[in-house]
């Protein structure tokens, strides 16, 4: 895998803006009926002019700053000319650096591990086209292509990396980190459908560059790349030439399919957009942007490790989702037990919600106050860890507080050695063969502990149980 070069082109919508990039229609187009979030400007009516949304420049500059990119003194917009049905003016207003660095960011970098940095070639602000839909679901068996302009003109930031990735796994790390950065900046809600999209280009040593387009979620990118690399590898082992082309990711079939060859590629005839004067940013702008950029994932990670003494692994998982990290810190405000709470979130909560869906965190029934209370109960040894897990599952399911659950069912821990000793005696008399095993095989002790725990409905303090079993086994051995 040493000869692979991968570069990315990521598009993210500036979802927290109120209006589109060049008009006053809503940036959040998702709740509208088709073609009801439109105006003469975003439909490219004759005589209309783009009116630059200053807030969009600010948000794009925040992204640029967070990716360590240089923000120039003046920015310019260009026209990218091509005919496509979703593009009402048949050109897109975007930025372009071939005739001087005038996009909102260039020459940035993002660390994805201690030893690996990905260079950012440019960050640019541009408009999203409309959306095409087909009367019977897909292009192949529909008579008509329908156009919905609700999305047309939505502010989009394009982030282009250098081809610095050498394996798909790195791409995943990078995209996770980028999502977290965007969430921390509060400029893009990556959970919204279509809010982030990614194109990738892959080349094997000696082969030409293949572009993969149409990857509509970050999660699919790694799969598309893995597929594409194995496809290219098998071609090159058979000495079949890899030609430069654009391929589409087919999400259903999990394969890439050819879209167009290099020869068919367009000449976009870029030139400066005459309707938008140069935007002079100035010194005040830079200081303003620096103030707007909050604590970012890297800083937050080192703070989590130093202040809360979390392991690198645990801290990373928390930081990868701003919502999870925020949840964690909200818990700490109520009850301060960082390592305990972090472990609950990273191990138990993520297992229950299924790993990658941390973005839905604000829709959960479990709240920081629940988590804090539970951690406190465990710390104070009022409940056993295994009961705590049961309670945790119940809180997650119902949203009841741990103390409510505790009073309705008896989960309180049994610390009374006499009571536990009775249970141990009962288990020893009913599990004779296991006891014999345990005499010679210390691994079998766990089985006996489990039986005692089961008998006490998990309420016995497992430390005392183990201790008493060991004592009893020793007595039996000596007799």
């Amino acid at each position, binding site marked *: 895998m040493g000869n692979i070069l991968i570069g990315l082109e990521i598009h993210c919508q500036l979802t927290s803006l109120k209006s589109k990039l060049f008009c006053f229609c809503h940036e959040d187009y998702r709740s509208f009926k088709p073609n009801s979030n439109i105006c003469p400007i975003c*439909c490219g009516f004759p005589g209309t*002019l783009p009116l630059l949304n200053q807030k969009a420049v600010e948000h794009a500059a925040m992204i640029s700053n967070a990716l360590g990119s240089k923000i120039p003194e003046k920015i310019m917009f260009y026209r990218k000319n091509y005919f496509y049905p979703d593009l009402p003016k048949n050109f897109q207003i975007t930025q372009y650096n071939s005739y001087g660095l005038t996009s909102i960011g260039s020459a940035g970098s993002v660390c994805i591990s201690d030893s690996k940095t990905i260079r950012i070639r440019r960050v640019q602000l541009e408009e999203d086209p409309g959306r095409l839909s087909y009367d019977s679901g897909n292009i192949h068996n529909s008579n008509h292509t329908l156009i919905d302009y609700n999305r047309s003109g939505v502010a989009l930031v394009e982030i282009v990396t250098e081809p610095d990735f050498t394996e798909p796994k790195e791409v995943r790390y990078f995209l996770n980190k980028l999502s977290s950065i965007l969430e921390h900046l509060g400029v893009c809600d990556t959970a919204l459908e279509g809010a982030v999209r990614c194109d990738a280009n892959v080349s094997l040593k000696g082969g030409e560059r293949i572009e993969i387009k149409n990857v509509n979620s970050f999660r699919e990118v790694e799969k598309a790349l893995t597929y594409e690399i194995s496809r290219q590898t098998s071609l090159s082992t058979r000495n079949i030439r890899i030609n430069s082309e654009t391929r589409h990711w087919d999400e259903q079939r999990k394969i890439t399919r050819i879209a167009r060859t290099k020869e068919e590629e367009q000449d976009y005839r870029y*030139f400066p957009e005459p309707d938008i004067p140069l935007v002079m940013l100035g010194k005040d702008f830079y200081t303003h942007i620096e103030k707007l950029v909050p604590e970012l994932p890297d800083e937050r990670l080192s703070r989590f490790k130093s202040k809360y003494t979390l392991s690198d692994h645990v801290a990373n998982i928390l930081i990868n989702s701003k919502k999870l990290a925020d949840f964690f810190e909200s818990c700490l405000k109520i009850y301060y037990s960082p390592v305990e709470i972090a472990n609950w979130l990273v191990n138990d909560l993520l297992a229950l919600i299924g790993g990658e869906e941390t973005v839905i965190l604000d829709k959960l029934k479990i709240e920081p106050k629940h988590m804090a209370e539970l951690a406190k109960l465990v710390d104070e040894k009022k409940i056993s860890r295994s009961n705590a897990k049961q309670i945790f599952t119940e809180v997650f399911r119902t949203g009841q507080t741990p103390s409510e659950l505790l009073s309705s069912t008896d989960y309180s821990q049994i610390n009374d050695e006499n009571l536990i000793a009775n249970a141990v005696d009962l288990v020893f008399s009913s599990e004779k063969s296991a006891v014999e095993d345990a005499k010679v095989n210390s691994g079998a002790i766990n089985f006996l502990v489990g039986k005692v725990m089961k008998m006490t409905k998990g309420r016995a303090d497992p430390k005392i149980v183990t201790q008493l079993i060991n004592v009893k086994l020793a007595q039996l051995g000596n007799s």
Partner: protein
Amino acid sequence: MSNLYDLGALEAHRGINQGDFTAEEYVWSIIERIERVEGKVHAFITLNKENALNDAREIDKKIRTKEDAGSLAGVTVGIKDNISTHGLKTTCASKMLENYVPPYDATVVERLKNHGAIVIGKLNLDEFGMGSTTEYSRYGPTHNPWNLDYVPGGSSGGSGAAVSSRECAISLGSDTGGSVRCPASFCSVVGLKPTYGSVSRFGLISYANSLEQIGPICRTVEDVVTVMNAISGHDPNDNTCFLLRSNVPYLHIKKDTAPSSIAIVKELIDGCDPAVSRTIYSALDKFKEFGWESTEISLKSVNYALPSYYTIAMAEASSNLARYDNIRYGFSLPVEGFEWNTYISNVRSNFGEEVKRRILIGSYVLSSGYYSKYYLKARQLRSLLRQELLSNFGKYDLLVGPTMPVLPFRIGEKIDDPLKMYLMDVDTVLANLAGIPAISIPAGHSNGLPIGLQLMAGPFQEQKLIDAASLLENAIDIARSPEI
């Protein structure tokens, strides 16, 4: 003057305001005039008769109730048909927009309406403003009121001819490379191209965004001032409109004007029609009589003006006109049975020949490998030219020359020679490339054909143009309107 349609904007406004006649009477007079001469002149694409009469009645109601009816109350205005009018067809004289009814008013139209002006109709032009004769209109050529066999100039030929033939008091044109001043010159009326950024372009259907401005065509300098005061100034709908007006009114007619220094540009007067240069020189003598200093200067970059202009204009046009794909608006051509690319090429074959030529050349100069060779060079020449012009405005108040190097010519005479047509714009494109204001003012006639004098000033120095044009207007009595 015996007819209401003879009145200029200010005269008509005063008459209506003072109750000498009603706005409705005045508009009827204009409509009758149009019905009488329009068959010969063909200045209009669309008439707005019923709405205009209703608007006039509204104005009359306001006057009766002593409400403020505005500084242009009742005045009839014709609008070039590439300027958007809410609910009124705006065709750009193109098949592509033959059924297009804008859902909004251009800022200039809205402002004129707010000042009480009445839109009487939409005026003919070369398709999308591309031409200097109005012969490239989908709806047929406009005829010069001074000689109906002759072109009225272009591209705002309808705007020039309608004002000259008294079919409306005032009109709006748009000037990308001379399109207001050329017809003003050919029709013996006054036309102003304002400083780039002083009049909103919102609603003007773009031909070449970085060059064009909307400007008034009127029979008197005074009317130009009135229209400019109504339409100019900052507009939140146009990021390139940045004239913040601290003085209202922005422009005015002065009773006494202190002498200024003027420079005649050698390159603009050399090689023009002898009848034209004779007229220009005798007009200059008038300025000298008033104690104005006049010098002859040479502007080297004038030689590069046309290639620079046409490269930039066509490049921008090729992109601006890409949107006409007949999907959201346009003309009737059902989509059934077409695949996207075939439909688009079918639709776009309906552009006129001159428009196609400019789209093709414009696409060529922007394509990769040619950008630096043509488009970038053109922009560099443009900034050289601008610098040279601006440096001269440090020394002289005004630059002067003919508006057009030739007299109006016969319809059809030059239509087969596009290059000859382009060369006629040599005097006017300078102001567009430099973004400076320029005015064309009638200076004389030769064999019954009008000749215009052009004055250029530094950015936002429209007042200097008004002063000089006003002086010349008082010094030489040139007829603005012929009998038809």
